[in-house]
């Protein structure tokens, strides 16, 4: 919360007491909820912007399981479809969650609405947080569509409902952390268009140099190391583990592949810690004059 406090330092009266800090927290929450609702209204006005969390997951799930599935033999055996759905979940979240935040925030920052917010007695940090919240809701929708498409092509899990939910939770936490990374992009570049192109340049290699589509066991050493330490690989391996789906990465000796759940949560928290601070600084710099 340090970043949030820093951003709000000049928006909150200096005197502090326990009751006041309680009120502040609930004020902040309310502001974030109001702004989340605003972002959802935007989505309802233009539902096409949801295609990356609806159409894309369905399309990718069908394409990859049917096209690759026929040719792919997993080291250690198992169904490619069962292997692929966890990876596809991560691939879709990694590309959609931060992009939504980057483009949405980039759009807001280039209009006068930010000036309006800044003259209100509201919590400024809620502007960025509200955006990440609505993107989290979009990520939930994305996860649902990946799962539905997966079920259609025969994806099954073997760890029961708790394992299933735990897998989704780890995946969504990772996607949420990347939303803050997207916030940094949206705040660092000039407008929504640049946010989109810069975002794609960074996120696609991140999603692809990993175990989301193919087992990385037989990669050249340097690429294998890169993939093993890619946070996206840890998240995908964690999801597969929690779902009880085939996870060939567990034979790779890199630490994140041996402890994917811990690694994935640690990566998520580390990304959150860094990106909330950076996003806060960028927001201040962007609005300072």
């Amino acid at each position, binding site marked *: 919360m340090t970043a949030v406090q820093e951003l709000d330092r000049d928006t909150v*009266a200096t005197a502090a007491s326990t009751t006041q800090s309680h009120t502040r927290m609930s004020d902040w929450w309310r502001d974030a909820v109001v702004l989340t609702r605003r972002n959802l209204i935007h989505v309802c006005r233009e539902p096409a912007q949801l295609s990356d969390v609806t159409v894309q997951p369905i399309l990718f799930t069908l394409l990859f399981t049917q096209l690759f599935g026929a040719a792919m033999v997993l080291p250690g055996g198992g169904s490619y479809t069962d292997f692929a759905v966890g990876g596809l979940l991560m691939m879709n979240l990694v590309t959609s969650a931060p992009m939504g935040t980057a483009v949405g925030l980039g759009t807001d920052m280039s209009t006068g609405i930010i000036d309006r917010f800044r003259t209100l007695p*509201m919590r400024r940090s809620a502007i960025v947080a509200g955006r990440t919240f609505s993107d989290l809701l979009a990520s939930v929708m994305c996860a649902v569509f990946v799962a539905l498409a997966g079920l259609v092509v025969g994806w099954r899990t073997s760890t029961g409902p708790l394992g299933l939910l735990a897998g989704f939770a780890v995946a969504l936490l990772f996607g949420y952390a990347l939303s803050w990374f997207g916030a940094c992009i949206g705040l660092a570049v000039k407008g929504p268009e640049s946010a989109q192109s810069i975002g794609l340049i960074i996120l696609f290699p991140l999603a692809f140099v990993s175990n989301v589509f193919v087992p990385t066991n037989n990669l050249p050493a340097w690429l294998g190391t890169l993939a093993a330490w890619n946070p996206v690989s840890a998240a995908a391996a964690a999801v597969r583990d929690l779902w009880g789906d085939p996870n060939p990465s567990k034979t790779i000796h890199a630490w994140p592949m041996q402890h994917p759940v811990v690694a994935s949560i640690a990566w998520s928290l580390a990304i959150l810690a860094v990106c909330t601070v950076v996003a806060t600084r960028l927001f201040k710099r962007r609005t300072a004059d």
Partner: protein
Amino acid sequence: MTDTIIEARGLTKRFGDTQALAGVHLDAERGSILGVLGPNGAGKSTALRILTTLSQPDSGVARVAGYDVVTEAAEVRRRIGVTAQDATVDVALTGRQNLVMIGELSRMDRRAAISRAKELLAQFNLADAADRVVKGYSGGMRRRLDLAASIVTRPPILFLDEPTTGLDPASRAAMWEVIRELRASGVTVLLTTQYLEEADQLAHRIVVIDHGRVIAEGTPDELKTHVGRQRLDVRLAQPPPSRVDAFDALAGLTNGAPTISDDGCTFSLAVDDEPGLASRVVAQLGAIGVSVDEVAVHRASLDDVFFQLTGHAAEDGTNETTDHTDTSGEAA
């Protein structure tokens, strides 16, 4: 002691090579309308952004409602409404959704925000368009919504940055009416404008800013009187046989040089308020055989004041010399 609710002392602000503000002082009394008048780029918006906590001054202090705009910004924000020059409403939301959102972000509970939104939509004649997306609003409607958004919490102090720029005359008149009503309900208004008429119509006091400096300050009447002169327009029946003679005849009545219209029939000069002036003009011109159709003496308009003030401040007298040469050249 007067009840000063907005005060600025020595505000300066530099953007790169541009000195946007070079020491601005201004005061607004509680319940009054202060007009900040100046051409584009004079520093009006910069001053307003500092007073509304959006920007920080390089030096100088400003207090709004008794709170420092830099160190007590949160207290200031609780007491002000701001309508910036660019529309600051969300164009993808309806008018009603905008007002409810702003109410909620201003610490009203949702039910109160909804009923206040309804009230404002009616007051600003937007009830029919309330549930339409703002993207489809006309310029005048957006401005009204923007103003409504600024007074959701009934702030005692309102800042309006060029509230009627770009509006058609009917929308402008409607906006003036709304501003007057707000004033009548006790709100202190600081508005910037480049329209002299607007400042004259609305403001109790006017601060004229040019090149980041206050170059004049007072009530509209004081400003006109401060310039101290009236304007005398003389229309001749036909062009005078000698422009030089006519020019000299009139120049004796004033310190400055008269200006002459292109057709040579209309002379205009700054004069002091003295009795019998019009008959002396007619007599002087009659003596050189020129007959007069019309003599009009009128108080200097704010336009005269403004151009005189900004002309001096902006051009350091160099253009004045040119003006003189032009005039005498024309006369010769």
